[in-house]
């Protein structure tokens, strides 16, 4: 069996007395596409935020590409990771946010060049070439000089995807990336993600409310409920024949809303 690209080993996250994730165990294979669904407050976004190191975990270990990320080995034991260790392992992961979080003081092109130049140390010319290529790929080749405020939500989100890809991550995280968009702009963003899934060998984790897209895109769907995976499986099984009552309730509620 190959090493999982991402592995949550008994990971627990608490906010005060509230347990958001309760000893989560989850393994994701290289190149696997996983959709995470569930009611709000079920901890699904927290999974991504912990993996991106935006949240500290309280218990357990997260492994990325076989290496512990939240911890490092020292004298044969695992100790909490130093900032340096975190930064090294974090380089494997890219994330796209619900609210885009583009840098408003930089053009689309500069948004995609900033980290490659200053973090990866790429020469400016090369970074610009790569950024331009990625913007072409997301269909924004003609908007390179535009600032985020001059772009629609869908365009901003596509820039954000290009910006994350410019760091050449092995794992891409999508956190409700279409939830802040007007309905008519959702399609263009999903189209880009669809292409990515087909043409690149990326491990992808997506928290989404778009059940139709999850069904088509994912190799596996995880249904979260109260900080645990209540049910998981291939999309056909989970969507057509949910075994758990909670899954059935959630799906019928979501499908009813359209």
């Amino acid at each position, binding site marked *: 069996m190959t090493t999982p690209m991402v592995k949550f080993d008994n990971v627990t996250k608490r906010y005060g007395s509230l347990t958001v994730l309760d000893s989560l165990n989850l393994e994701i294979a290289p190149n696997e596409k996983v959709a995470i669904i569930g009611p709000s407050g079920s901890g699904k976004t927290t999974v991504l935020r912990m993996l991106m190191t935006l949240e500290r975990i309280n218990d357990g270990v997260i492994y990325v590409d076989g290496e512990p990320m939240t911890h490092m080995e020292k004298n044969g034991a695992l100790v909490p990771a130093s900032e340096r260790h975190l930064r090294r392992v974090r380089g494997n992961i890219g994330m796209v*946010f619900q609210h885009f979080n583009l840098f408003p*003081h930089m053009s689309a092109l500069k948004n995609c060049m900033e980290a490659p130049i*200053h973090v990866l140390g790429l020469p400016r010319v090369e970074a610009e070439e790569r950024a331009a290529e990625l913007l072409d790929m997301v269909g924004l080749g003609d908007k390179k000089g535009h600032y985020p*405020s001059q772009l629609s939500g869908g365009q901003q989100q596509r820039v954000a995807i290009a910006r994350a890809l410019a760091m050449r991550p092995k794992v891409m995280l999508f956190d409700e990336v279409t939830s802040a968009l007007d309905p008519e702009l959702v399609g263009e963003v999903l189209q880009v993600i669809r292409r990515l899934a087909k043409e690149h060998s990326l491990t992808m984790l997506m928290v989404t409310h778009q059940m139709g897209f999850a069904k088509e895109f994912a190799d596996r769907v995880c249904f979260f409920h109260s900080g645990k995976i209540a049910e998981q499986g291939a999309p056909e099984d989970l969507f057509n024949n949910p075994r758990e009552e909670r899954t059935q309730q959630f799906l019928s509620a979501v499908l009813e809303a359209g």
Partner: protein
Amino acid sequence: MQLRPLAICAIVFFTAGLAVASFANFREFIPGLLQGAWITVQITIGGCIVAVVAALLAAIARMYGPAPLRWLAVSYIELFRGTSALVQLFWLFFVLPHFGIVLEPMSVAIAALGLNVGAYGAEVVRGAITAVPRGQWEASVALNMPRKLALRRIILPQAFAAMIPPWGNLFIELLKATALVSLITISDLAFKAQQMNQTTFRTVEIFSIVLVMYLAISILITVGMRALETVAARGMARGR
């Protein structure tokens, strides 16, 4: 943009001032007062530069520095906000020589006023940095930027745009506080006015001109800051 009404205001005051001055034969006071005004402008510019540098350093040290630096920054801010600018001026000018440190009056004026306003400015800077949406930090982490790089390249440029209007206020405060330096032997605008008043007793004319001159400088500052605001806002919406 409200540049036009301001510019009109400035021109009206300036010409009104000039007209009054030339009609009533005030002209004799103008060269001397302009000399004083030039000193005032120099102290204002120097003080503003010191204030901005001190404020940035203090705010960043307070927010992100190690404990000793944090304490130093907090002490500086509280000390200079909590005591009078006049006492600070006297301290640097009359007290420091007792410890063997003798400074030029101009240096003392620029340092004291700059540090005084910088202490207020540090809180302005801190507020502006805090106001940058958290998502900007998170995006920086997601792009694996070290904290310092994120602060310098992502957070501060956005904070600058938000801190320009309050800085305009502080610069004008600094201009007005320069009148204090006449008390440490500097012949600034206020000093010149006092001096002329004592020899000629033409109080109305002299202090009317001085009023207009201070106002003109402060309007210049406002106009400059508005222009800076326009530049900073260009192409950038303060969004998430």
